[in-house]
């Protein structure tokens, strides 16, 4: 379930490499508008990029690409992030263009991380939080 309450931003798009950067840019702009500092913006860009890349690379193995979604909620000095897809779950692939360290990187940067079954029992949801004490939200 996506985070609720606070000030919310969300975007859903086809699980395609072209949308990773667009969604990353969108959520960072949202965080900046809430007063998140440069360090938080940088960690947000990286965690979101890794999460969305996981959707593109691992969620639709041997099936047509589906949808990925990104929800950000600014609440009480914390950015709550949810990255969802409607794929088959994150499956390993031998031709992965990454290092296999995406989730490890997210775990290092986030103050919390959960990996869950996606909404309606389909796909995967990555839920993470980033501390952003400088944000204006109550």
């Amino acid at each position, binding site marked *: 379930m996506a985070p609720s309450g606070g000030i919310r931003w969300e975007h859903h*798009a*086809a*699980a*395609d*490499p*072209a*949308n*990773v*950067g*667009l969604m*990353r840019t969108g959520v960072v702009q949202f965080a900046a508008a809430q007063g998140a500092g440069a360090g938080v913006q*940088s960690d947000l*860009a*990286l965690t979101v*990029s*890794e999460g969305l*890349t996981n959707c*593109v*690379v691992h969620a639709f193995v041997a099936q*047509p*690409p*589906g*949808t990925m979604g990104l929800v950000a909620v600014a609440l009480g000095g914390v950015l709550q992030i949810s990255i969802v897809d409607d794929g088959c779950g994150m499956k390993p692939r031998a031709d992965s*263009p*990454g*290092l296999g*360290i*995406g989730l490890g*990187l997210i775990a*290092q940067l986030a103050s919390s991380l959960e990996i869950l079954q996606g909404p309606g029992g389909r796909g995967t949801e990555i839920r993470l939080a980033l501390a952003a004490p400088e944000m204006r939200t109550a």
Partner: protein
Amino acid sequence: MAPVQPDRKLSEQLAEEQLAVEASTRRRTALVALRGELDLLTVSKVAEVLDGIEPQADGVRHLVLDLRGLTFMDSAGLHELIRQNEFARTNRHNLAVVRGTDAIDRLLEVTGVKDHLVLVDDPDDLAPPVGTDRPG
């Protein structure tokens, strides 16, 4: 209903806007400078240019990859750095990486990739300077 996939031309256009790759060669040194965002969409542009240089014993021997113009890099970029570093080792040419922003430096640090690369602050830090031959 299946989501609408971005058209290939649009994807290529986005990749062009997101990352510029500038390569120049002088004598036995190739300098490749990146400007913009290096991720899953754009990493193939970098790979294509770097692979196209084809360092060899009687040609380019030194490859300098300049990250100073990057505003973002994720593990897709790291993967390419490691791939190029491994190729340099097996192909016996030199690869140096010019440090990028603090965020990119931190990424190299936390992943341990920094320990495997020859990192410099400026291409001019290389001895001999870029654009000149290195003995041997």
